[in-house]
């Protein structure tokens, strides 16, 4: 087999650096960023999901977690079914989903199915609002979601076993274990779950023909394995290996009135990233090599796509106030999809330069630049500039002003370019300019953040019918999305009860600015499946061994047609979660009960694809040496 020269180039790039980097002696702790590039995101809004919230959602998918805990909207085709994101009024392909720094959006569809990403083994979830292509590359137009696993350097053995049982035939099992001695750390997780998903649906509500039946042909099952291995020869460098294989099988939930099977889908993903991190006198180095293999099999028609990934980063302080980071990301993508008319191979190489400059103690700025090169394709230069200005900052209170301007882009998907018939190799990348500004205020245990944003996406790609029955993707549209987001939270104590309460709200207007075809009467209309209003309120409480969470979610009307003549009604969901932990020496037992949608509100996130009413989940977890 002939090794492509770019692969060689990539290997050459990684290894000398690795060897050379080992020479440095200065022992400095390696700093890891939950979001790899957070400090270069000056002026952006980043929200990290709290650990207790992650813990509550261990049985859930990433789609459920984000839908319940952020104002981001998910176009869910039913319970456990395809669930795609709409972030700040953009399309599902306009959010980059990164797992340990690697974009895991499907390269054929350009989007991620957030329902197929279980939360069982994800240590950290961060939501980066708004465009950030300079940091993360293609797709980060509406925002980006970051899933990160990292070493804890805990010593000894730990293990956990979690079994859960829920409504509509849900059964889940999770088994995890870890070993660490300060130098080595290994973490393993196996999970599986399944559900009949036979929740009741009411048809013709309020009419003489009203009837309720149990959904059928909508069952799903999932299993996966995660392995993380870390090795730290000295405190200033370490190796990491993160591997994750996941499988999901689903009967595609039919539309509400249909009792027919609607097809069968199997998703399989294997993701592996190996990295070396080094923090020496000469700066901070990171090299990574990764492999991602995705297969989506719909009714046995497979779409296999593989990627080899290489990445290198070098960071150093130029002086006390300026830090620079240079990096390159390389991907070699192969797809063997019958409808692509032959095997496809493609190289993508990105170069980026990031700078942070503390202009004064009050003013922190960042300047970023990225250029991507894609086989036979010209991607735009993506710069961003951001700043945080601190009006005042004391122990008790602070007030900051943030602003950010950036350009982002999306490389058309493989389907967009190669699908036969219709694939359009002449497509241009989608090209977006976005800006946002906000205030962040903190007063003791009270915090508030108010953000306004605007984002113009040009050359927006949509499939349009051309001759005969053939549809073709074209750069037909310009979209303007803008909105206001508010985030408020307050910590307080009532006797022995520690509480946190808050609100998270988003107003989003996202409109079509130009006609997509001659005679298009929909200019100025809100895009479909973008709620103008969405938000949530929460109350978390901890009392001795008890942990409680109360959530209220509200999603406004969403148009389902481009002419805005039809919409899905607004809905409100109330969820309660209660957990009780007992500990005896290193042994622990948690019992958790969740009651979701306790008002039994019928709702849909995609027209005629009902979501479940009131449902319960009981889980029991034994753990040894774990929290």
């Amino acid at each position, binding site marked *: 087999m002939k090794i492509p020269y770019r692969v060689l180039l990539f290997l050459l790039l990684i290894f000398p650096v690795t060897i050379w980097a080992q020479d440095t002696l200065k022992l400095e702790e390696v700093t890891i960023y939950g979001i790899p590039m957070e400090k270069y995101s000056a002026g952006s809004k980043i929200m990290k999901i709290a650990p207790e919230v992650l813990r509550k959602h261990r049985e859930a998918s990433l789609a459920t977690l984000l839908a319940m805990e952020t104002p981001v909207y998910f176009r869910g085709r039913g319970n456990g079914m395809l669930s795609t994101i709409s972030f700040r009024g953009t399309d599902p392909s306009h959010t980059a989903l990164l797992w340990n720094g690697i974009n895991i959006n499907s390269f054929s569809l350009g989007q991620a199915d957030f329902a197929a990403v279980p939360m069982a083994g994800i240590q950290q979830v961060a939501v980066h609002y708004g465009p950030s292509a300079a940091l993360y590359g293609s797709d980060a137009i509406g925002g980006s979601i970051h899933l990160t696993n990292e070493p804890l350097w805990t010593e000894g053995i730990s293990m956990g076993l979690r079994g859960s049982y829920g409504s509509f035939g849900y059964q889940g099992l999770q088994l995890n274990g870890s070993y660490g001695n300060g130098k080595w750390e290994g973490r393993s997780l196996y999970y599986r779950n399944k559900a009949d998903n036979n929740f009741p649906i009411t048809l*013709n509500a309020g009419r003489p023909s009203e009837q309720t039946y149990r959904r059928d042909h909508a069952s799903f*099952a999932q299993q996966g394995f995660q392995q993380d291995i870390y090795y730290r020869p000295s405190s200033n460098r370490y190796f990491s290996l993160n591997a994750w294989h996941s499988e999901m099988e689903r*009967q595609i939930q039919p*539309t509400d009135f249909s009792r027919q099977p609607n097809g069968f889908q199997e998703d399989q993903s294997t993701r592996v990233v190996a990295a070396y991190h080094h923090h020496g006198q000469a700066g901070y180095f990171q090299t990574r090599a990764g492999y991602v293999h995705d297969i989506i099999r719909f009714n046995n028609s497979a779409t296999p796509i593989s990627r080899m990934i290489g990445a290198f980063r070098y960071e150093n302080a130029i002086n006390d106030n300026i830090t620079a980071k240079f990096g390159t990301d390389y991907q070699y993508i192969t797809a063997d999809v019958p409808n692509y008319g032959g095997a496809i191979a493609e190289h993508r190489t990105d170069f980026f330069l990031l700078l942070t400059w503390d202009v004064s103690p009050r003013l922190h700025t960042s300047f970023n630049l990225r250029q991507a090169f894609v086989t036979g394709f010209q991607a735009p230069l993506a710069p961003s500039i951001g700043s945080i200005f601190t009006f005042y900052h004391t122990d008790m209170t602070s007030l900051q002003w943030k602003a950010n301007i950036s350009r982002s882009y999306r490389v058309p998907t493989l389907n967009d370019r190669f699908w036969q018939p219709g694939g359009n190799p002449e497509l241009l990348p989608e090209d977006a300019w976005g800006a946002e500004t906000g205030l962040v205020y903190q007063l003791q245990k009270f915090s508030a953040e108010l953000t306004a944003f605007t984002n113009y996406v040009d050359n927006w790609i949509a499939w349009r019918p051309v001759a005969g029955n053939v549809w073709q993707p074209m750069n037909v549209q310009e979209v303007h999305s803008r909105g206001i987001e508010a985030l408020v939270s307050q910590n307080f104590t009532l006797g022995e009860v520690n509480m946190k309460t808050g609100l998270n709200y988003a107003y989003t207007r996202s409109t079509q600015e130009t006609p997509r075809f001659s005679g298009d009467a929909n200019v100025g209309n809100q895009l479909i499946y973008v709620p103008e209003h969405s938000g949530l309120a929460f109350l978390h409480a901890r009392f001795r061994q008890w942990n409680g969470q109360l959530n209220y979610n509200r999603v406004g009307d969403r148009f389902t047609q481009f002419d805005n003549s039809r919409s899905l009604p607004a809905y409100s969901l109330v969820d309660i979660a209660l957990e009780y932990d007992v500990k005896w020496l290193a042994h622990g037992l948690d019992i958790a009960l969740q009651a979701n949608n306790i008002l039994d509100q019928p709702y849909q996130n995609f*027209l005629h*694809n009902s979501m479940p009413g009131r449902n319960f989940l009981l889980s029991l977890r034994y753990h040894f040496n774990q929290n």
Partner: protein
Amino acid sequence: MKHFFKQSQLFYLLLLIPFLNACNDDDDQGGPQIPPEDIYSNGVFVVNEGQFGTETSSLSFFDYETGGVEENVFQEVNNREVLGNTLQHYYIDGDNGYLVISSSAIIQKVNALTLEDQGTIMGDFDNPRYMTSIGNKGYITNFGTFVDGGFQGAKVSVVDLVSGEVLTELDGDNAPDYIMAHEGQIFISNTGNNTIGVIDPESDAYVTQIPVDGVPGKIVADQAGYLWVITAAFGAEGQETGLYRINPTNFEVDDVVAVEGAGKHLVINESKDIVYFVAGSEVFRKSTAGGQPEAITTLSGFSAYGLGIGKDDELFVGDATDFSSNGFVHRFSANGDFIEQFSAGIAPNGFIFRP
């Protein structure tokens, strides 16, 4: 993982439990039967497919008496929330109407005069497309399901229209699409192997398959009893596509009129001597007696998603816009003069005139 999901796979393969076929019991109340008033006559039904993946199919009714258009007539008459997912065809046989709903895989039976729900036929359909009938026997083409990179389970279902039972199923590996009954035979546009299939309703077996060039679309019968088929050039460049005239007694093609850029839409006028069809962005007419097609109008700013014919041979052309907005219908005189444009449901794909 192989055995991981066995139970559900079985579940998936289970035969479909009839659910929506609760027949309308109103007729069983006893008392004298008053013939229903013929409400939906002197007008044109618009068949609106609806938006992909949703149950937004609908029928609109253009009323010649009032000149107005009524939307969602099935839902209005029956006080129902939806009609179904992807209405492909509305077939009328006397007082009975049959709505072929592809993705719902049902045939909704209605009273053709009033549109009252007469129950559903759930004949184990798999993406049903078009329907015809001879006597009490209904013939329904099924496109099948996309499996392993191709369509599987394609067939022609033969249904007893009184009991709703499936009498037999004919192999339909050739992607059967449009179907019509003519002079005691059933003719089918097989889009998989580009033939016109012929079924003998006595034996319910294929008699022959007549090869054509291009993908066969709609079929009409003329005054003299000949069949006309339009064939589209999708993926068949360099072939002789256009209008085929078929002799229904010896099943032979006896005339071919090449038409560049022909689509799949074809209608015939009331006296059955002029056919109308769409090629490229133009609407053509042609005498069945002979001569060349003549362009009568150019469709500007949209492409034809459906073609129909109404009173005085007026032409109705469906405009599906973006397939996610309500579509439009453009109405022309028999000579191609534009009369008006009116709004319809999503993706109007066909028209049925009831005098």
